[in-house]
């Protein structure tokens, strides 16, 4: 028998505010959400299964396609996990470490720009969207110059980087981060004092620190609830301990607090990039591990050792000793972790990806039940989910 007390509607998977293919089944009492049930999996490609059938170097391009708004972070988490498995962590050259940090932070700005653009657009502030994408285009161009691709960069390698930075890119990045704080001020000028923006996000999507920890929320969504935890500072990787930055924490527990936390994070990222540019010195970009790292092209065509190593690595891969490692990195969305189990073969025996968006999305019913249906749009925006990462 039909239930006339409440009405059940589908929001998504084809809905502009669901940022991909997220389906929410909403049970409504008038305008009030009584129950929200997320349905995910529409983009499931079986990355974990595929990775069991590829060598360690071949798995890397799969990781780009998880969180496609922050591909460098996924690459970074994966290569760090494999390097830890190999015991290669301390052998990574300084230049590779610094470039990794610099690009990871550029990626954070890029990802946060998409968050702000789409979040504001969903709520009705169109102008911010155009401005954010204007700045994002600069980072996309850096990506293209550095890695050859705008989205799926696949630039980091186990042991270092795939190629050195192109000439002149450092000045361009420096120019960009000199301009960026002014752009962030522009976004704030458009939004922070805007009455509509305030009304739409203040007190919306409230989640307490205890609930957020219980539900496994990480990243800026957790720091917006006042939890001072950032893996870059608390479990530093890739040399983050050498950089001076603040962890962006905001106390409000609502969408407004998370908005401020992410804006501050973008400013801190600019600081880190500037420090990285100052640290950047010429030097090797690959670890001295010829059985693991693919040799540079000039060695492949000019030396017999290079050719043999290249052939062996491409046809057979390398074999880490049996064991298991977990490495978590601070993705723009939260903690992305790679748990790799090796059985001594050239392929991961099991690779589990801890996806930040997947776990964060679990908090969505808690954050929007009891509020208006229009607030669901704000909550999806503030969680900053990427379906490619959720569905894997």
């Amino acid at each position, binding site marked *: 028998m039909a239930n006339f007390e409440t009405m059940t509607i589908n929001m998504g998977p084809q809905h502009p505010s669901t940022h991909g293919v997220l389906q929410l089944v909403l049970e409504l009492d008038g305008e009030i959400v009584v129950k929200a049930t997320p349905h995910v999996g529409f983009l499931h490609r079986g990355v974990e299964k595929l990775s069991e059938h590829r060598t360690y170097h071949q798995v890397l391009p799969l990781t780009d396609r998880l969180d496609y708004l922050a591909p460098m972070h996924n690459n970074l988490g994966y290569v760090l996990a494999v390097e830890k498995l190999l015991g290669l962590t301390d052998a990574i050259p300084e230049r590779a470490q610094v470039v990794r940090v610099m690009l990871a932070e550029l990626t954070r700005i890029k990802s946060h720009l998409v968050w702000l653009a789409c979040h504001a657009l969903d709520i009705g502030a169109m102008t911010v969207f155009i401005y954010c994408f204007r700045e994002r285009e600069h980072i996309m161009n850096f990506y293209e110059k550095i890695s050859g691709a705008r989205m799926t960069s696949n630039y980091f390698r186990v042991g270092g980087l795939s190629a050195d930075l192109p000439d002149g890119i450092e000045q361009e990045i420096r120019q960009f981060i000199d301009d960026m704080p002014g752009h962030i001020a522009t976004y704030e000028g458009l939004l922070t004092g805007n009455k509509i923006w305030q009304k739409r996000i203040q007190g919306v999507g409230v989640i307490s620190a205890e609930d957020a920890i219980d539900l496994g929320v990480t990243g800026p969504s957790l720091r917006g609830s006042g939890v001072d935890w950032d893996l870059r500072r608390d479990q530093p990787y890739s040399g983050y301990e050498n950089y001076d930055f603040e962890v962006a924490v905001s106390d409000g527990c609502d969408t407004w607090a998370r908005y401020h936390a992410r804006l501050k994070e973008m400013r801190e990222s600019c600081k880190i990039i500037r420090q990285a540019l100052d640290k950047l010195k010429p030097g090797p970009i690959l670890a001295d591990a010829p059985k693991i790292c693919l040799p540079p092209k000039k060695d492949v065509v000019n030396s017999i050792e290079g050719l043999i190593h290249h052939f062996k690595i491409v046809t057979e891969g390398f074999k880490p000793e049996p064991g*298991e490692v*977990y490495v978590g990195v601070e993705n723009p969305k939260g903690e992305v972790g790679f748990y790799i189990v090796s059985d001594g073969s050239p392929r991961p025996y099991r690779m589990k990806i*801890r996806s930040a968006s997947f776990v964060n999305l679990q908090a969505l019913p808690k954050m929007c039940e009891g509020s208006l249906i229009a607030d669901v749009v704000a909550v999806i925006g503030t969680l900053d989910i990427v379906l490619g990462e959720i569905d894997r």
Partner: protein
Amino acid sequence: MSAQVAVDKLKAQFGETVLTVSEFRGETTVVVKKDEIVAICAFLKKELGYNFLTDLCAIDYLGQAPRFMIVYQLYNIGIHQRLRIKAAVDESDARIDTVSCVWATANWLERECYDLMGIVFNNHPDPRRILLAADWVGHPLRKDYPVQGPDREPYQGRLQ
């Protein structure tokens, strides 16, 4: 408090239930019996401060007994320390108690584990598939599930 201290306290509390402790690349792994997994997790959370369940997954050791290993990645936000708990599950009785009563985040992680690996979680509040369609047959992350799908011949390369 290092992970060793936590492991010692865990051993003192649960004795025989803690089977082995190993360390690899600075990461501590504790293998426990599956019977008391909820009590162990509750103890780790309340007494030892491992308040954050980072991840939960299963590994399929096809051909070995017990076949499955359930892995819990824990994190202590207070002292920033990780600990890994593992519990073996046999193929004939591929079930283990849910820890979603200890950490709410386990709800979806266990659903994913059931969906892709076919481990049943006793007393789970919402035991549905999550990533695959509700009528999907099989559990793709099992080692005996072919990578190209159940009804297709394996790809032999273009020359075949």
